[in-house]
């Protein structure tokens, strides 16, 4: 039952895979050697199939497209046609043109996405604060309608964003990439949390997020910290709260 979803997830689709191959083999996007790229592409698909991955239909459609383009470029030129026809042939689209257009278009947004990613991580470095409660400031002209300029949709919106907020707080990793919460990082977090809490925290409170992976990593981190004698766990009796203490030597 081993799954290799991670490898499949590494690509965002057939266009992404093609771009990867183009970069890897330093291919000029405007002059793609179709035979070579088709070969590489199919090899990748075969590998995926060998790994018993569920190859999405989009990848197979692209494989068919590549093969179609390849066969078109291989077609022998008609030599017995008259000159006008020959001209028409020359004017005909390069069979690769549509694919190149799509690749370039997709690449644009892939780059735009990485720009957004940069902004996202930059933004995560700063904090703002929620608006202050000004209820204590009495307005001199009390409005007749206490909810003027609020609609029922503001109520709905408030309710939704409340739950969204709660949800995002609870699950800091929506797409869990295990690399993102390495155990030693979580171990350091726990130690500094304990330091901040004057060396003591309850077991339960070390699980701030309800994401399964975060909890598992936290649990493993606690076990590891116990093993390396950085923390001590105490439970006065069965079913009581487990209390985690930072070992004294470490505080200094």
């Amino acid at each position, binding site marked *: 039952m081993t799954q290799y979803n991670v490898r499949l997830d590494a690509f965002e689709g057939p266009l992404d895979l093609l771009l990867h191959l183009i970069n890897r083999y330093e291919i000029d996007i405007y002059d793609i050697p179709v035979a070579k790229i088709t070969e590489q592409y199919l090899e990748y698909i075969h590998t995926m199939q060998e790994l018993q991955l569920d190859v999405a239909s989009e990848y197979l459609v692209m494989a068919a497209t590549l093969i179609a383009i390849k066969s078109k470029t291989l077609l022998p030129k008609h030599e017995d046609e008259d000159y006008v026809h020959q001209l028409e042939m020359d004017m005909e689209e390069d069979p690769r043109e549509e694919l190149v257009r799509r690749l370039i278009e997709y690449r644009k947004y892939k780059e735009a996405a990485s720009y957004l990613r940069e902004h996202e991580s930059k933004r995560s470095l700063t904090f703002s604060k929620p608006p202050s*409660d*000004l*209820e204590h400031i009495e307005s*001199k002209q009390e409005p007749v309608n*206490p*909810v003027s300029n609020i609609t*029922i949709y503001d*109520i709905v919106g408030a*309710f939704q964003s409340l739950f969204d907020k709660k949800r995002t707080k609870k699950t800091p990793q929506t797409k869990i990439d295990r690399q993102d919460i390495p155990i030693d990082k979580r171990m350091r977090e726990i130690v500094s949390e304990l330091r901040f809490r004057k060396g003591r925290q309850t077991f339960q409170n070390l699980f701030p997020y*309800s994401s399964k992976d975060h909890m598992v990593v936290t649990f493993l981190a606690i076990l590891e910290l116990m093993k390396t004698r950085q923390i001590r766990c105490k439970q006065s009796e069965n079913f009581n709260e487990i209390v985690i203490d930072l070992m004294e030597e470490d505080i200094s």
Partner: protein
Amino acid sequence: MTTRIEQKAVIEGLLFVVGDEGLEGKQAADILQIETLEAEELIQEMMTDYQAEERGIEIVEIAGAYQLTTKAKHISYYERFVESPTTSSLSQAALETLAIVAYKQPITRAEIEDIRGVKTEKPLQTLSAKHLVKEVGRAEGTGRAILYGTTKEFLEYFGLKSKEDLPKLPEQYEDDSIEDEADLFFENFESVMEPNDKGE
């Protein structure tokens, strides 16, 4: 090694972030990895700095913790702000509380606080004073906590025929799958810890 100036900057940022939960001298000291006394001294200095004419906020000490507030002498500007038509007539806290009461009524204050994650006494007072929510009964069990619901006026202001007339929420807000997952984990965890008690 951070300079005193930098340390002050960090404290300002910390005070800004903690809001009205306040920051204790010891907390500031831990974060800056300096002595508590040193941190207290820095904060006292900053209190003086903030008295400068060009500052609109100041540090106050409330219940052993420091927090930022606006200056009392500027009150007339905040009154103008509150009255300005672009300013929402309910605070975010009151709006959130009202939304919860509207959709989850009848509901106790403790339950509202559970959802919001913060104390909700003041917003509930505001909403009662504005006749938007009222007591609709008492919860069963010890304590018999007050149950809140929306008022007739609430329906009138928003032009609703009845409580059932509230717009339906998207399905995603109904499910509790995330919480379930957490519960599942702790359940499993407990059953590992106490295998004898669970007849497995």
